[in-house]
Structure formats: C-alpha cells, structure tokens
C-alpha cells in the first residue's frame, strides 16, 4: 500500500462511472428504476469521493505534479499512446467540477427523468459521459485526451438523441457528432504535427521541449502556430465557437439535465480546458493567441445577440452558454488562462443551475419551453425562482456573485493585453450588457407579469426535493464560488490565480509585477462592468415589466434585424445550402450515378459487350458455305506467304506492334 493510495489507483475515479454505465446498460433494462438509480448515483458519488481523496493526497504531497502510466494502449514504432493519468492544479479544478456538478445533476435527474421511458439508458449514458469526461481531464497525453474528447462527443450524441423517436432529436445528435468530427479533424492533424515536431504526445515532454522554443513573431505561421490553430479548431468544435457553434442550440433537444451537465457545465468547456492545458504552446504563438481571443470575443458577442430574441427558454440558455464560452476563450486568448478557467468553474455552477432551474420550470409547466407561454411563475414556484434569480445575477456579473469576479478578471485582462486589447474589451463589455439584458428578459418573461398559459389546463407545481436540492447547492456555489478569486484590491489574495500559478506560472508573475499600477485601473473597470450589467438589467426591466407592449413595438420597428436574429443569422440554412445539399447532390448524381455506375462500370461492361459483338462477327464469318471457307483458306495462305516473304518490310510494323 503506497502512501497516496488514491493517486496510485487514480484509474478508479473514471472507472467507477464506467462500471455504473456497463451495469446499467447490460442489466438495467430488466431492473426496476430504483436499482438503476442506486447504481448510477453510487458509482458517480463514489468517484466524486475518490476524486476528493485524490485531491487531498495531492495537496498533502505539496501540490507536486503527479503522473502515472497505467498501461500502453497503442504502440507502434516510436509512438506510444499510454493510459497515463496525471493530477495537477488544473486537473484538480476540472475533476472536482466534473464529478461534483456531475453528481448533483445525477441526483437532479432522478426526479426529472422519473417518468421517462428508457430510464436505465439515460443513466448508463450519463455515467458513460462521466467516464469519458474524467478521462479527458485526467489524461496525461493528447492521445488519451482525444479518447475522452471523442468519448464525450459520443455520449452527447447518445444523450441528445435520447428521445430518438423524435426526428429532430436524432438529427440534433447526428449534427452534434459530425460537427464535432469536423473539429476533431483539426485536432488530429494538430496531434500529428505535435508528434512530428516533438516525437511524443505526452504533455510533459511536449511542454518541456516547447518551452525552449523561441516565441514566434506575430503574424508568422510557425510550426507551433499551426499546431495551436489546429488544436483550437478542435476546441471550436467541442466548445461551440464560431463557426462550428451550430450544433449546440440544437443539442437542447436532449433532456434538460443533459443540457445542464454536458452542454453547459462540463463537455463544452473541454475546448477551453485543452487551450489552457496547451498554454505553453499558445503562449509561444501570439498569432494563435490573437485568433483565439478574436474568435472567443466575436462568439461572445454574436451568440449574445442571438440570445436577445430567442423565445425558447433553453435556447436562450444555450446561446448564453456559447457566449460565455466565448468569454473563456477570450480570457485564454489574452493570456489570462487562470481567469478563463476561473470563469469556466463559476460558469459551471451558475449555468448548470440555470439549466436545472429551467428544467424545473419546464417540469412545473409539464413540458412547456416557450417563454411567451409562461409568466408570473414567481409566486408559484418560489424555490426555483429564487435559485434561478441568483444564477441570473451571477451570470449578469452583479457583485458579489461568482460571475462578477470571473467576468471582471477576463475584461480586465483583455483590456491590458497588448494586441488590440481595447477593441476586445469594448466588444466584451457590450456582450456583457447584452448578457444582462437577455438573462433578465428571461427572468421577467418567466416569473413576472401575468401568466400567459392556460391556468385551467396546466397545474403548476414545485419540483420534488431531489430536484430542488441540487438547485440550492448550486445556488450557494454560484454565490460564494467567486470569492476564491477575490481580486487583490479587495485586500484578498487571488487564491485561484495563485493556486493555478504552478501550471500557468510564467504569465502570472508578469501580472504580479504590474499589480500596483493595475489596482486603480481594475477598480474603475470593475465599476464599468457593474454599470454595464445594470444597464442591461434596466433595459430589460423597462421593456418587460414597465410597459410590456414596448418590446413588440421595438421588434416591429426593426423587423429585418429582429427576424435575422430570430433565425440565428440563417447560419444553419447557409451551411445546408453551401455544404450539405451540394455534397449530397454531387455524391448521388456525379460520383455514384455518373462516375461509378455509368463511367467506370459502364466501361467495364462496355468492354464485355464489345468483345461479344466481335465474337458475333467472327461467328457470322462462319457462313456454312464451303466455298467461302475455301476462300478463307486462300486468304490464310496469302497471309502466311506475305509474312514469310515480305518480312523485312512487314517486320517494322510488327515490331512496332511488339513494342
């Protein structure tokens, strides 16, 4: 028994959910729900505890990077992909978020899915997802990380398509997987390039070697830049950034807990995690950094604008997720990795909370998702209302809620960054205003004003405690979650940044140097941020509480813009028209029908027909008339004589034939 037993058996952490998944998947069909529940909850809960234990040991060991190779999974030539797990500060954050939030959501699901068919399927998928997600965050090399990466994609495919009888659900699942695959295409190439460059895919080796490389000048496409961009392509796919964000809104077809866990809290943040994890590479390539920042910033704003007008409560949350992820990338892009991860964590709390609360609302209304058909629920489902409000305040960035600190840190960092910092800051700020607006719009439309649903039919009821419990816990987290990173000027040392220091080392110390000068500025900026949030709040209040008519008038007054937003800038339609349909048409008519059947196969059969046609000719020379035969003999005689006598001249031709 080694000291740090848990770390040395780290594989148990991911394995437990896998076991749960396997057991439920194989036997769940026959079991009553409670067995299934037990299996799922215990497996994930245990893995949460194990994770905690592992973290404890990690801290005891003085936060030294722990890395262990368990077995080799692919080996060819000098390439080795091992089942290697590692534990460092970044991992700690991710593991705790994943297992913790994951566990809560499992508990929530008990109530939420109670009356759904395929209960066992749901939990076995969910556990499978946990397994892959843990692999992803614990992996110590890109290959294994890719396993988790693809695996979570798979489980999201399964969970989005959970209600596979609905075509829309099945479509959404497929779309999610394929769009992710497009990202993975880049990710794989990135891995290949890294292997080609560093002869390995282990984080440790790559980063060690990469550190010695010179920084690549801005705008210069060096190896590292290309590698980073390729990896980032993967990240855009997984984390729903421009231009590959299209799958996430559709993913709301899945059950709400899934949206909460996968499409808000954990999986979609994998892209951010990868970028943060590969920060050594990124920091060596300003170009890549800038790209990340711009994409992130643009997505943050773009998604927010769409979020303004959506009416489906989950769609709004989905776009806000996209936009928040944009913030995280913005953070990484400007080098504030710890801030990015910090926002990742807080976002995990409040976005999960938002989704679960929304789920609770939907649950209360018996499956209704359209906000225009809600309203005035505040009094009826207080707990839900309260928790959701907290979450909203957090995401809007109102102090002292979690969102405020993380978002503030990001904006501050972007403001400071050399390359186009001001622009990024401005856009980010604008996005913050929009965020505040559409979130409060959601709140007001849902909980305030008059009920717009048929009160006779729909009997609104508060959700069971199995669902409210997680809400409360998450609400607390979204309140206090930010205080880890109490910025210095509030007198509190930035625990979080310092904690992640060893990982993102270099960058942070630089910040520390600028600290003194920065305090003043930071104070102002945070003020500005709060103001921005309040503006958004105010506008929402004015439009949806004070004079509800106004909103529609505004919408009418700017019809084209409104419809454009409502239809999400027609991006899906664009893709369909520009990529999907042409490809299918091409494959059907050109490649298959024309090239394959008519062209190649036609040629083959054509040769056959030609041969038999000639054969028919030969056959008809067989006229059955002896005289003709005699003439043939004579002809043959002449041929033979000609060949034998006039050879020298004929030979030239014949040799030509021979050659």
């Amino acid at each position: 028994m080694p000291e740090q037993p848990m770390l040395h058996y780290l594989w148990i952490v991911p394995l437990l959910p896998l076991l749960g998944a396997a057991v439920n998947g194989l036997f769940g069909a026959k079991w009553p729900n409670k067995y299934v529940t037990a299996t799922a909850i215990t497996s994930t809960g245990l893995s949460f505890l194990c994770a905690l234990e592992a973290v404890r040991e990690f801290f005891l060991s003085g936060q030294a990077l722990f890395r262990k190779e368990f077995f080799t999974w692919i080996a060819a030539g000098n390439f080795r992909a091992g089942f290697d797990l590692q534990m460092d500060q970044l991992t700690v954050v991710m593991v705790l978020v994943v297992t913790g939030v994951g566990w809560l959501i499992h508990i929530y699901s008990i109530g939420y899915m109670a009356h759904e068919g395929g209960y066992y399927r749901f939990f076995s998928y969910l556990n499978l997802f946990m397994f892959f997600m843990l692999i992803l965050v614990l992996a110590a090399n890109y290959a294994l990380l890719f396993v988790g990466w693809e695996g979570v994609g798979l489980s999201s495919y399964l969970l989005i398509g959970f209600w596979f009888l609905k075509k829309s659900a099945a479509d959404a699942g497929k779309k999610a997987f394929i769009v992710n695959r497009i990202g993975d295409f880049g990710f794989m190439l990135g891995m290949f390039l890294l292997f080609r460059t560093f002869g390995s895919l282990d984080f440790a080796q790559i980063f060690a070697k990469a550190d010695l490389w010179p920084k690549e000048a801005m705008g210069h496409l060096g190896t590292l830049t290309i590698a980073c961009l390729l990896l980032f392509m993967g990240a855009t796919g997984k984390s729903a950034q421009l231009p590959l964000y299209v799958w996430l809104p559709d993913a709301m077809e899945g059950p709400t807990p899934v949206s909460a866990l996968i499409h808000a809290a954990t999986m979609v943040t994998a892209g951010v995690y990868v970028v943060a994890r590969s920060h050594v590479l990124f920091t060596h390539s300003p170009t890549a950094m800038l790209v990340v920042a711009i994409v992130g910033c643009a997505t943050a704003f773009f998604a927010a604008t769409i979020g303004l007008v959506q009416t489906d409560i989950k769609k709004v949350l989905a776009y806000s997720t996209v936009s928040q992820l944009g913030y995280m990338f913005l953070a990484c892009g400007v080098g504030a990795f710890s801030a990015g991860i910090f926002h990742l964590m807080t976002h995990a709390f409040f976005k999960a909370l938002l989704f679960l609360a929304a789920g609770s609302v939907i649950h209360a209304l018996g499956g209704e998702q359209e906000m225009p058909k809600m309203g005035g629920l505040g009094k009826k489902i207080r707990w839900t209302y309260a928790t959701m409000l907290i979450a909203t305040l957090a995401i809007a960035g109102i102090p002292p809620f979690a969102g405020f600190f993380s978002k503030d840190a990001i904006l501050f960092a972007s403001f400071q960054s050399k390359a186009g910092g001001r622009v990024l800051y401005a856009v980010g700020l604008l996005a913050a205003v929009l965020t505040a607006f559409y979130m409060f719009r959601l709140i007001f439309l849902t909980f305030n004003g008059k009920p717009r649903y048929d009160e006779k039919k729909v009997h609104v009821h508060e959700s069971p405690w199995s669902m409210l419990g997680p809400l409360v816990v998450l609400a607390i987290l979204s309140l206090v979650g930010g205080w880890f990173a109490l910025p210095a000027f509030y007198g509190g040392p930035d625990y979080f940044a310092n904690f992640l220091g060893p990982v993102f080392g270099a960058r942070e110390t630089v910040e520390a140097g600028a600290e003194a000068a920065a305090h003043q500025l930071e104070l102002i900026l945070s003020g500005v941020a709060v103001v921005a949030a309040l503006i958004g709040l105010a506008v929402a209040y004015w439009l949806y509480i004070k004079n509800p008519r106004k909103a529609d008038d505004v919408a009418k007054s700017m019809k084209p813009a409104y419809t454009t937003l409502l239809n999400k800038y027609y991006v899906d339609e664009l893709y369909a028209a520009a990529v999907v349909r042409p490809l299918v048409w091409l494959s059907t008519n050109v490649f298959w029908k024309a090239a394959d059947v008519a062209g190649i196969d036609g040629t083959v059969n054509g040769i056959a027909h030609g041969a038999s046609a000639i054969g028919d000719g030969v056959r008809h020379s067989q006229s059955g008339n002896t005289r003709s035969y005699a003439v043939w003999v004579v002809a043959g005689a002449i041929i033979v004589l000609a060949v034998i006598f006039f050879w020298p001249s004929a030979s030239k031709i014949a040799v030509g034939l021979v050659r």
Partner: protein
Amino acid sequence: MLSGGHLLSVLIFFPVVGALALMMLRGDDHKFIRSIAMLVSVAEFLFSLMLLRGVPIGSSGYQLEEFAKWIPAPPIHYHLGVDGISMFLVLLTTFLTPISVWASWNSIQKRVKEFFVMLLLLEVGVVGVFFALDMFLFFLFWELMLIPMAFLIGIWGHERRVYAAVKFVLYTMAGSILMLVGIIWLYNATGTFDLPTIQQMLANGQLVLEPRTEMLLFLAFFVAFAIKVPVFPLHTWLPDAHVEAPTAGSVMLAGVLLKLGAYGMIRFCLPLFPEASHRAARWVAVLAIIGIIYGALVSMVQPNLKKLVAYSSVSHLGFVVLGIFAFHHISMQGAVFQMLAHGISTGALFLLVGMLYDRRHTFEISEFGGLSTPVPKLAAFFLFVALSSLGLPMLNGFVGEFLILLGTYQRHWGWAAWAALGVILSACYLLWSYQRVFFGDVTLEKNRALPDASLRENWILATMAVVILWMGIGSPFITRRTAAATQTVMDQAEPQWAYEATARANAKPHAKTVSLHAAPTIRVERLAVR
C-alpha cells in the same frame, strides 16, 4: 531449411480434410453437416492459435518454414513460412470462418453440404496464400480461392448473383494472369520462384532491375493486387459481389479476401520493386485518397444498406493502401492493423445487415426505419460496430486509422490531411444510415413485429463486439508482434538500400541487369539480317 513441425501444412490442409469429410456425408442431414463444419472450423482456429507461440515477438524473417521440392523444371518448391503480418491475417481468417459458418446456420437452406464445403475450401485457399513463400505456390492458391468464392456468390447469392460471380472472377483473373506473366518474367531474371531467395539476390545486388523493367513488373503485380483491394478505379466488382453474396460470403469477402490485395502489396510490391514502388507511391497515394473520399461519399448516398457497407470498404481500404505507400514504419503498422480491424468491424456490419435481411428479405434502407423499437439488441450492436468502423477511440477502427494517418503525416502531411477528411465522412454515412434505419418511429407496420436477436445471433455479435473492444484497447498485443515484420519490409523497401545494391552490382561484373526490351530488339535484327 525446414524448422519447426508442420503446423503450416496442417493449417492449410486440415480444412481440406474437413471438406472431404463433408462431401462423404449424406446431403439431407443439415444439422449434422453444420455441426461438422463448425467443428472443423473451430478446430482450425484453435490450431492457428499455436502460431502465436510459433512466431516469437521481435523475430524478423519467416518462421515455421516448411520446404519441400515439388517440381524440378522450373524449380517450384512447396515453401511455406509465416511472419508477424501473415500470422494475424491467418488468425483473422480462421476466426471469421467459424463465425460465418455460425452466421449461415439457418439462412442457408438449399444445398447445405456444398455450401460448407465451399466455405472450407475458400479458407484453404486464403490460408495458403498467406503462408506461401514460393511465388508460384502463392499464385496457385491465389487462383484456387477464386472458385469457391465464385460459387458462394453464384449459388447462394441474391437476385443478380450470377452476374456478380462472373464479374468477380473475370475481374480478378484479368489482374492475376498479368501477375502470372510478371512472376514468370521475374523467374527468368532470377531463375527461381522462391521469394526469400529473390529478396536475397536483390539484397546482395546479384539482381538489379533496370528502372523501366522494374516499373513494368511492379505494375504487373500491383494491378492484380489493386483489383483485389480494390483501389479506386478498379473497384466496381466489389459492390456487386458484396450485395449479391450471401452473408457468410460477404463476411469472408470483406473480412479476408480484400486483405489479400494489401497483403500482396506488402509482401511483393514493396520488397521486390522498392524503387518502382517509391516512384509510383505518389500516384498510388492519390488513388488511395480518391478512394477514401470517393468511397465515403458514394456510400453516403446509397439507398441499399449492403451496398453502403460495401462502398465503405472501398474507403477503409484506401486508408490501408495509403498507409502502405506512405513508407513510414508507423503507417505500415497502422495499415496492417487496419486490415485486421476492418476485417472484424466490416465483417460484423455484414453480419448485422445479413440478420436484418433474414428478417425482412431486403437491403433497401427505405424498407427499414425506426427499427430500434422492435429490435433494440440489434440496434445496440449495430451502433457499437458502426462506432468501431467510424474510428471511435478505444475501439479497433481508431487504432488503425490513427496510426496510418500519424505515420503518413510524418512523411507527407498533405496526404494525411486529405485522408483525414475520410474520418469526418465515415461519421456522416454511418450515423446517417444508422438514423435512417433505426431511429424515429417505425415507418412500416410489418417492421413492428420483427423478432429481436436470437440467442445464436446474440452470441455471434457479442463475440465480435468483444474482439472489437479488445483490439481497441489491447492493440499492442498485435502491434508488438507485427513490428519486426513491418520493419523488415520497410528496410527492404528503402530506396537508398536499393541504390547501394546498384553500386555493389556495378562493382560486381556478374550482376545481370535485365531488360524486357533489349532482347527482342536483338532478335528482330537477327531476323531481319537473315
């Protein structure tokens, strides 16, 4: 020369014995016949497991060689041997044979005896091809295996079976006869059919092929193999053959026969004609990549489920060919692994398609839809296999593709980039077809009552699933054993190595440089003068 028992001969001829035994049986007791066939094929598989002991890890060169004089003039020998690559391909064969016997347990009802006889004879031919070290012997088995396959397609196939069978045979023959010319020609240059000997001669520069000749010879061999694989423009026999063949036939065809082509490339094209291979590599790669993308796209839009799988094979084997002609150790190993993986996954896919056919007697996707409600088990297995085939990590499909792309990237990143598109497309066509077949509401009422997987089917599919998973996680078990062999091939295929040989040859006076065309010109002059 003769080292270590007669395991290889046993492996080749044991099924013959089985087939003869079956012929002796009365034709009407189907159950008994099936059991015997099963017994034989399983026993064969168990025998073949002994190979694992016979081929120690890291052993380069051929193991368990058997050598016996056969025909004095021209010197043709009964020369067998096995190395890491062929060993696993044989294991694949001997594994898939019982599976297909099992799979055709109930689906074959007419002329049962002949069916299993043919299946066993097919196994004989294939195993023989993998073991043969004498080129003549190789060709012999190569041709032998045609007939049983043709019969399997032609007698127990579907509507257009005859067309498909004849097409299959003619296509393959067209290639293989040219290969025969090539083999004979090589014999004239070297005076032997013995592969190791020829490799020796090349190694120590006794034999140096003049470039043009080498290229022609390379083509003679390559075309034959390319048809079998099949490489892009020569693939049109495949859809017909697959769609018309009975399930077992498709499994063997996709699982094993297609591999013969790739195996031939590894075993003959590269080592014997290194420089030509290198010169041709660019074009071959282009064809392979076209095959990958084109195959995927075409399969995406197939209305016929079995054809869809068939075209997907074109795409997957494009990867294999690419991996071979990328001339990188990793990609080579990837190619070998991909062969095995494809054998299993696509075999499993065909099994599933066959099971659907047994229930509905159609392959038209439009005839299915929403099947996961009536047949959840089949749906689950299908999804699993589809995922392995689209290369999900931790399943077998991924390892091969990943290694191929990784290795290819090290040499020509462009090729890898293009080929990687196939990874996206494979997801498209598999998931799309999966959705159309299994998701949504049941579209046709008569599908509502379909029975789910029977016990037998469950076991078959479970077996396949286990292998898929094992190959995905425990791939080093295979790669460690193939490493040495692939390394040898790579060394033999190294061009600078060939250049050295040339240098040595020029030093040696007795080195014969052979040319197709010098001689006839001389003769023609002589005729003209006389």
